[in-house]
């Protein structure tokens, strides 16, 4: 039987028949910021009492269960479970499972194995009390949060779940410059668009914690773009045999929005033979669909901002997440806003660290959380 207390600051009491880890004396506290993404996860960790980062890793969110009958020595150390890049490299010999779909846990057992791997990365000896702040999609429901808590029991000691777009803003904030007169603090007045694998999250960040009205989550993001590309490819090039991984590679290398670009010829090996695929229209159409989906949410949130803050807000629209790498997405969104009459909009990209902002924000939150703000996970 498992009993979980829902109230914040209350201990989450859970009775599990077999704790994952043997009881090890906890001699220190490690603070973890975790962006548990549908396709990629990022973890930052460091000792309590400082803002130092001792571990910083981006790991594909996959677990590979090694198939029966694999000859000894094929898999390093004859491991039975592989994670991240290693699972993808050995995909031929594994059942590769993605623990998350649309930003939330869809396969609890695999999620638990993946979190165990994260724990191993941040605290290999297992002698730390782990306090983890984990990002969740903007409107993840109670069941999704509870599933994550259950998966983390026995792996983390304390937990705090925070919406991802808010963590993006915290991570994007340059703390060293906050008091400088010319620095525009993104936590004070900005609008974040976080385009991930499973969801696109938009969030008004205006100096207080965003309410439900300040956030919109759209279940259409990188994965959905891949679906569209794959469907279009199958129509244009039947029996192309391209794997999902290959389609993701093509998307990440060539994605763009705006006017259709032609020609965009890409060489691909199909059935052992080299073929040239014309992808300009296919990729452009799929990526433009993403813009069409998120634009109404963007204007809705702008309309919800107060008249006192909206002009400054329009200067601080930030695109982050993997979708920020789509060529031209900032320009197209900015142009659409300008065409619709919004006052001098400025849309910018979060930059090279886009994979890490949620985790950076989560780690900052972990460093700042008061004792009574953590939820205890007791096994």
């Amino acid at each position, binding site marked *: 039987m*498992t*009993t*979980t*207390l*829902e*109230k*914040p*600051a*209350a*201990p989450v*009491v859970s009775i599990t028949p077999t704790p994952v880890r043997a009881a090890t004396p906890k001699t220190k506290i490690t603070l973890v910021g975790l962006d548990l993404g549908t396709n990629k996860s990022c973890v930052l960790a460091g000792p309590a009492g400082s803002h130092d980062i001792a571990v910083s890793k981006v790991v594909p969110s996959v677990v590979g269960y090694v198939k029966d009958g694999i000859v000894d020595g094929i898999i390093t150390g004859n491991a039975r479970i592989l994670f991240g890049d290693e699972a993808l490299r050995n995909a031929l010999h594994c059942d590769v499972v993605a623990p998350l*779909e*649309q*930003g*939330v*846990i*869809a*396969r*609890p057992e695999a999620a638990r194995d993946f979190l165990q791997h994260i724990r191993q990365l941040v605290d290999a000896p297992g002698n730390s009390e782990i306090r983890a702040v984990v990002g969740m999609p903007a*409107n993840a*429901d*109670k*069941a*999704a949060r*509870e*599933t*994550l808590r*259950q998966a983390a029991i026995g792996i983390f000691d304390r937990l705090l779940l*925070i919406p991802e777009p808010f963590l993006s803003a*915290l991570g994007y904030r340059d703390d060293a410059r906050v008091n400088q007169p010319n620095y525009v603090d993104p936590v*004070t007045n900005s609008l974040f668009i976080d385009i991930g694998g499973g*969801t696109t999250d938009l969030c008004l960040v*205006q*100096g*207080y*914690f965003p*309410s*439900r*009205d300040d*956030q*919109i*989550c*759209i*279940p259409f993001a990188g994965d959905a773009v891949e679906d569209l590309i794959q469907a279009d490819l199958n129509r244009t090039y039947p029996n192309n045999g391209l794997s999902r991984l290959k389609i993701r590679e093509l998307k990440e290398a060539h994605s763009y929005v705006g006017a259709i670009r032609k020609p965009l010829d890409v060489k691909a090996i199909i059935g052992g033979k080299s073929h040239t695929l014309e992808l300009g229209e296919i990729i452009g159409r799929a990526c433009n669909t993403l813009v069409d989906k998120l634009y*109404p949410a963007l204007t*809705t949130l702008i*309309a*919800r*901002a*107060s008249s*006192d*803050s909206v002009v400054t807000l329009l200067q601080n629209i930030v695109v982050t997440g993997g979708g920020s790498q789509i060529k031209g997405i900032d320009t197209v969104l900015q142009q659409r806003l300008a065409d619709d009459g919004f006052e001098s909009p400025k849309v910018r990209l979060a930059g090279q660290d886009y994979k890490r902002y949620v985790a950076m924000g989560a780690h*900052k*939150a972990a460093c*700042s*959380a*008061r*004792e*009574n*703000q953590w939820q205890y996970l007791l096994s």
Partner: protein
Amino acid sequence: MQEISTNALLFSEEPWTRLATLCRRICVLRAQGLTAAADQLHASDFAPALAALRNQAGQIDLFDDERVRLLQAIEQERVANAMLMAELIQSLVNSADGIASTGAATPAATPAALSTPVPFAPANPVRRAPPPESLSIADLLDDMLTQSQHSEA
């Protein structure tokens, strides 16, 4: 605790009671993470009151630096004890509430799903006033936890 009570008697008369009250309020603000507000109260009220006391010291023959340090130590400890007590009580109350509502908090039996996307509702007519600049991440987290409590109540 007994020691605090005994020492507190040293400050049971004016102008020390006023100084003790201010000191306590500053300690409470600091304990709540409202550092800027604490600094402001210190500058606007406590420091002038202390200066006035120093000026009067010759006449009332009560003032010495050691006594001020003792006052600060006493108030800090009182506030720390009160915060600890509040935390314990809150934890007990929350535990009781949680146990009472266990039936409603059953874990998801099926894979978790996103809630229905928030409909693009019309603008929220009432926007919150901008927060003070001193708002810390911990204060924002308090805001989040309060919202979460309300939405789940």
